[in-house]
């Protein structure tokens, strides 16, 4: 009974809270720009409206065009079940679950890009190509980050990897993971979700042809992914294990909020990079994570 | 022993003749004469001269002195060539080579561990000098005939060396060896003849079709 309740609670946290983050980001951007901006709950309205809408589908697209977003959404949701929520812990936890989480995210990427290629549109092909290419470096960074955590904690299961206090590598790791968060979620400076020029987009351009419920699923999945990274980042940097449950919960919420605001701040202060400079920044994030790993090695020795 | 050395010295002189002369007939003659000299030598070495020895000597003399030269003469006339033109190794150089070789042969022979009874004889130096001459002719000359002569002189050298063993080796073996050598030269003579017919020339520069 207790298990079911806690499971439902975690599920609720992930599913219901996720769409809040983009809203917050937009609020922050608007606030910095001195506008009123859309309401924080804008995405919820959008999702509700999209769910009602009819699907328009390219004549070229195969069923996978519709199935793809669903798969991606399930994959991300699956990934979230292994990420502990502070005191609430994780739904699923076993040795090596970290690898499963990474590969579920990869599965989501696969489904999104596959669906994008369905339409045979040059723009969506462009987006897909960029998505998978940048993911190559992001993946390396993530592996390095996870190795760092593993070295620090001597564990290979997320629940325990994220729990204890963080060693000296926290700063480096935070910087690295934050960059990865930005690229994985296609935020500025890698991608500009708000732009109106398809040539410069990554994620948004991939979903050009999607409409109705599938688009809703995609948007929700994206926010879910953002939340996942935010939670991951918070817990890998802050010593969650040392707090009492209540505090931990509060800290987690605060952390996620902080990350979100940070993303907003970056978006409003920075411009999008030229594409040829993107790999440079990504490599930097990889190096940050690797350095974090070395520091952790020394620290834990 | 002295008259033997005299003959050998003569043979060595003939080497120089063969090296120096550009006219084919004189080369052939020199070779033939050398063959005859060699044919006589066993008679001087063997202490008890049986009929076999005589037979072998006569066979060698005729083979090397008459038959082969005859063949070569014939081929030469058929090919209408009298002299060796632009050889690979010029006459003066080959003459010098021959002379130097002869001296070197004498020196080397001194350093070789020979049995006392051979120490004095010119057999080994003569052999070495003839072999060298033969090689120079084989490598240095262009006309097939002069090459055959070179080969003959080369074998004469070996024959000279063989005379060291004449006491000990059984006659049967010697006979076989001589027979083989003679037949060999004979075959070569025939081939020369055939080549002359096939190519209508005895210039070995024409015989370089087969190559990589």
């Amino acid at each position: 009974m207790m298990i079911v309740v806690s499971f439902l609670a975690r599920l609720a946290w992930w599913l219901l809270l996720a769409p809040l983050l983009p809203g917050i980001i937009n609020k922050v951007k608007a606030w910095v720009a001195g506008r009123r901006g859309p309401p924080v709950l804008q995405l919820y309205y959008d999702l509700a409206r999209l769910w009602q809408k009819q699907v328009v589908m390219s004549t070229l697209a195969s069923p996978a065009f519709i199935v793809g977003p669903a798969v991606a959404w399930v994959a991300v949701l699956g990934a979230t079940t292994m990420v502990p929520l502070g005191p609430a812990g994780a739904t699923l936890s076993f040795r090596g679950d970290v690898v499963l989480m990474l590969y579920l995210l990869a599965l989501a990427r696969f489904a999104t890009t596959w669906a994008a290629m369905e339409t045979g549109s040059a723009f969506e092909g462009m987006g897909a190509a960029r998505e998978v290419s940048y993911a190559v470096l992001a993946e390396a960074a993530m592996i390095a980050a996870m190795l760092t955590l593993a070295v620090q904690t001597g564990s290979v299961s997320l629940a325990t990897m994220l729990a204890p206090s963080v060693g000296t590598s926290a700063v480096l790791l935070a910087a690295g993971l934050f960059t990865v968060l930005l690229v994985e979620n296609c935020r500025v400076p890698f991608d500009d979700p708000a732009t109106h020029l398809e040539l410069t987009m990554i994620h948004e351009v991939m979903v050009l042809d999607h409409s109705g419920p599938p688009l809703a699923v995609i948007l929700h999945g994206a926010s879910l992914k953002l939340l996942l990274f935010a939670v991951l980042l918070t817990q890998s940097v802050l010593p969650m294990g040392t707090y009492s449950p209540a505090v931990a919960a509060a800290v987690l919420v605060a952390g996620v909020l902080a990350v979100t605001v940070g993303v907003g701040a970056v978006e409003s202060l920075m411009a999008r990079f030229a594409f040829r400079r993107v790999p440079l920044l990504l490599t930097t994030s990889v190096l940050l994570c690797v350095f974090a790993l070395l520091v952790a090695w020394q620290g834990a020795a | 022993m002295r008259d033997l050395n005299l003959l050998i010295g003569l043979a060595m002189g003939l080497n120089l003749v063969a090296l120096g002369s550009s006219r084919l007939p004189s080369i052939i003659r020199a070779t033939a004469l050398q063959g005859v000299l060699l044919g006589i030598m066993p008679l001087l070495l063997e202490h008890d001269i049986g009929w076999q020895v005589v037979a072998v000597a006569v066979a060698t003399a005729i083979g090397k002195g008459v038959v082969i030269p005859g063949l070569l003469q014939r081929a030469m006339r058929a090919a209408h060539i009298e002299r060796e033109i632009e050889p690979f190794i010029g006459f003066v150089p080959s003459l010098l080579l021959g002379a130097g070789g002869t001296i070197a042969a004498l020196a080397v022979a001194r350093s070789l561990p020979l049995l006392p009874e051979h120490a004095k004889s010119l057999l080994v130096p003569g052999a070495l000098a003839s072999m060298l001459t033969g090689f120079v002719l084989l490598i240095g000359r262009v006309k097939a005939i002069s090459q055959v002569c070179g080969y003959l002189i080369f074998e004469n050298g070996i024959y000279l060396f063989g005379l060291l063993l004449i006491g000990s080796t059984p006659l049967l073996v010697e006979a076989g060896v001589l027979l083989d050598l003679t037949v060999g030269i004979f075959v070569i003579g025939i081939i020369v003849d055939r080549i002359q017919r096939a190519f209508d020339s005895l210039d070995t520069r024409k015989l370089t079709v087969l190559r990589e």
Partner: protein
Amino acid sequence: MTVGPLIVLAFAALTLGVVVGRRWPRLWLALTLTGAGAAIVASLAVLFGAVDWEWRGAFRLGGEALHLRLDGLSAIFLALVGVLGAAGAVYAREYWSDAHYPASAPRGRAWWSALLLSMMLVLTLSNGLHFLIAWESFAIAAFFLITLDRGQRAVRSAGWLYLAASHAGTLALFAFFALLAARTGSWDLGPMRDQAALQPLLWLALFGFGVKAGLFPLHVWLPSAHANAPSHVSAIMSGAAIKMGVYGIMRFSGWLPAPAAAGWVVTGLGAASALLGIAFAFAQGDLKRLLAYCSVENVGIIMVGVGGALLARADGDAAWGRLLLAGALLHVWNHGLFKGLLFLGAGSVLHATGTRQMSRLGGLWRKLPWTAGMFAIGTLAVAGLPPLNGFVSEWMVYLGLFDAVTSRGASAWAAIFAALMLGTAGALALASFVKAGATVFLGAARGKRAAEAHESGRTMVGSMLVLAALCVMLGLAPTLVWPALARGVAAWQPAWPVAPVPQSLQAIGGAQLTLAVLLVAAGLFAWRRLRGGVARRAMTWDCGYAAPTARMQYTSASFAGIVGGWFRWILRPELALRRPRGLLPLRAFRLERFPETVLDVVIAPVGGLIMQTASGARRLQHGSLQAYILYVVAGLVALGALVLTAGVR
């Protein structure tokens, strides 16, 4: 069911297949299936029956008594050979039918049986001399299968390259086995872990078998051979034949004592193969070449597992060593299955369209729905994505590496390096296969041939279905095969205690199953909603562009552009470019080829140098007799000098 009779049955059936293959296709198929089936059952009996099979005969071959053995390690490979052999045989009935290839199809059948037979012999023979015999006959059978379509120059040169490389490897194995025999005094093979003097021999084996395994940089022959071979041959070459090299490395690294550096070298080579192999694959525009290079990557993953296991053996750390080797072994199966599936799929595409160039294909999912579906499954598997089998083995390798890192021994650094490489390679594999699948099957047809394609017949689709089903099964029930893997590990290193199914693997199994259910449910739900008439078809929105054509689609080259730029240093693309000129440019193009770099940069120059020496030497044979006699004199003098120098000593 005892193993011996089954093995005999398999050998007998296949031998008979060689004989009857030319004349009676149906009988041949029956025999091949019998042989393959018998081999599979035999290996399963060994793997799950938990007892090795060994047989020594009095019959002498080449002066050596026959000695057969089937243990956990060889059984794993034997099963794979059986599966792919059967699938390929069925597939070839239609793909390489007598109707289309009256000349080569009968030959192909005979050689197919020969190939299966010799591979099975390689796996079971336990005597150095006989091993070499089987090994070479396997190489030659493969050569004749690759060059079945001998009319084409490209096929011939690819075949010759394969043969040359394979011969180089075989000669190294000559040295290896001769040295082994000279050191141990017998050709008989078996565990010799205690003889430390044999350590350096492993390097020879690593080279000899590495060539066959296609380990970077010994893979030069692989891409062209696998691309130009008939697809069912490519399937078994990529799926099973290169695994013979892997088998050799595993077998002898298990039986012989390993040098201290071996673990590091193998791990490093594996990691390099994984990354560079997939980088090359991503760049390719030829579907089958892409698949071939991807095999280099997967062999790399396997080798990372083996190298890690060697490191673990050196550290005496059973836990993660076992995991790594088990992962490698499972990946042997998985790669065999999904790469076989993918090559058969590529064959079906080739069969339907007559081209391997992805930039001429596109939109095939309508014409070849079954092929598209199977290929998609293969794609998910090869990208190592859950819930399919590829993920399970890669997960095991990853977990082993993570454990190696947390164990914080010296080997941790190798593990860190390998893990980073594998991560990058994994992401690249995903990219490559999104590109491959999408450009071939999605969007609009880029060419006439693609537009007029047709689905393949029952036998071809059927054999693909079988492999796909196996992929799914291994993905959803990894715990079932753990005992087999444990047997393999035990055969490699008996000192390690046999472990029950790890908790984590059970968890993964559960997770995979749940995920599969959820995915299917979500997919069905979405599809039902769509079928509910909600969807309206419309032209792809092209940002207001009025007349989009199929040629405006992203091609494979443009898709690989970004990453291709990063790896330019090793890919060394050949660019043929004509920019549009003038106001109304008539023709402009941009062609990018990615040649085999190691071949062009290393092998070709060295070969050229040797050929120069050869042609220089040939000038010595210029036909002048005088010179020849001079050579004789020279030889005489040289010998004299040699004797003098020796006499002085």
